[in-house]
């Protein structure tokens, strides 16, 4: 048994020794959609094998990822809300915004489609049908890239959902997965990025009811955190990583990533 204070101290030191300390790694703030789809588990080992550089991924909503990066808790940012990304760069937090890859958003809903949106010709028409019918629609409500996109879509369709919040329009304030879980339970409509939807395992009676519309584009951007604002940032390695992602080789690797035989992300670096 441990008897003296010094023995306890030694015990604590031994306990905490094996923690890996990751000096020199890249800290990447990114979105749950890219992380949950297994994209980073696929691409990071390829990059590490090539360069020996380790990348740590923190997956949160786009809003929070940008906030964290503004606090300098990131070396690189990969998110999906273009206007916020541009503001991040304009405010001097980021160096430059690059297009990285895209996929699309899809409208998910109960397979019997009570609001009959599957025959809609446009996203506006689909949202109009849900609005008129007043069927449960689950919103992220968390300032994420997907939430911002959804709000923009309602605006474009000139529909004001604010009066219905808490009625048929329910804001979860949670990540995409949690929101999909709730949509499954309530048999409701929701907007999801395609990658999260494909990899989501609790689909129950939900399916894709509306997709393939130009308004549903989901563009991911990559930004290096500016070392002038954040002196601790690991700019050297992050540059290597970003340049690799934007290179033909990196873009090709993105293209090759498939889940259940489906390609999840389409590279489009400029």
């Amino acid at each position: 048994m441990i008897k003296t204070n010094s023995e306890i101290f030694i015990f604590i030191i031994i306990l905490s020794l094996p923690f890996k300390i990751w000096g020199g790694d890249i800290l990447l703030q990114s979105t749950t959609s890219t992380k949950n789809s297994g994209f980073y588990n696929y691409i990071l080992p390829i990059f590490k094998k090539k360069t020996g550089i380790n990348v740590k991924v923190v997956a949160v909503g786009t809003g929070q990822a940008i906030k964290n990066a503004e606090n300098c808790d990131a070396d690189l940012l990969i998110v999906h809300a273009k206007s916020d990304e541009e503001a991040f760069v304009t405010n001097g937090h980021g160096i430059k915004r690059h297009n990285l890859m895209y996929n699309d958003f899809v409208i998910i809903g109960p397979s019997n489609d009570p609001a009959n949106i599957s025959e809609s010709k446009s996203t506006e028409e689909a949202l109009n049908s849900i609005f008129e019918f007043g069927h449960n629609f689950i919103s992220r409500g968390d300032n994420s890239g997907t939430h911002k996109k959804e709000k923009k879509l309602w605006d474009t369709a000139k529909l004001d959902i604010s009066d219905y919040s808490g009625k048929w329009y329910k804001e979860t304030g949670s990540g995409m997965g949690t929101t999909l879980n709730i949509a499954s339970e309530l048999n409701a409509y929701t907007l999801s990025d395609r990658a999260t939807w494909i990899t989501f395992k609790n689909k129950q009676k939900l399916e894709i009811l509306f997709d393939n519309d130009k308004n549903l584009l989901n563009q991911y951007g990559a930004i290096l955190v500016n070392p002038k604002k954040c002196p601790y940032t690991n700019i050297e390695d992050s540059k290597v990583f970003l340049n690799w992602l934007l290179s033909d080789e990196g873009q090709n690797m993105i293209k090759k990533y498939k889940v259940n035989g489906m390609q999840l992300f389409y590279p489009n670096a400029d």
Partner: protein
Amino acid sequence: MEVFLKAFITALELILNFDISLYEIVGLSLQISITSLLIASIIGFPIGVFLAITQFSGRSFIISIFNSLMGMPPVVVGLIVYLLVSRSGPLGWLEILYTPYAMIFAQLLLILPIIISLSTQIFEELHKEYKDFFIIFSVPPKKSIIIYISDSKDSLITIFLAGFGRAVSEVGAVIIVGGNIDHVTRVMTTTIALETSKGDLPLALALGIILIFISLIINIIANKLKIKINKESSL
């Protein structure tokens, strides 16, 4: 009900197949929670004794503060620690955000009030019994602290378990300051949250079952220890 059955089978499979990532996650959980528990005990028990045996104005107010801090939401603790250790925060130079050290820090803040409040109560009881004895034999205060702690070992085990339970089961704080990074800061509870968000409910529940199982083992060991201590002291 099918989910429960599936979860149970998945849990058994994970344990019996010696799934390496599972053992890594469980190991990290235990390592972090036990470390924060020990640090909290070293700080907390002496404070508990101090609060129990000394009289000063504001004492009961301090005790009330610690009592109410026991109910502090983990997310708030996580947020506070995040703001402290963020690269732009006052402790940013430590560079411990998104490492196990930040998680230990957060758990320490979570369980310290439990250790202090509960031990104060136990030492207060003991103090009523021993007070006169200590005065008669003029035992120095430092010595009395050691006597109090060693004479209440079995009750302290209960406090340990309460602290450990809080540390190992919370998710709100460690997911903010740890970031749930694979192979670095991923623990049982953050994995459960992650798998739930992926919609893999059986796997999430299986991990929950394993967490309860580990708690059970620890409780059994602690109880054995308690019985042993009681036997020794009754001799």
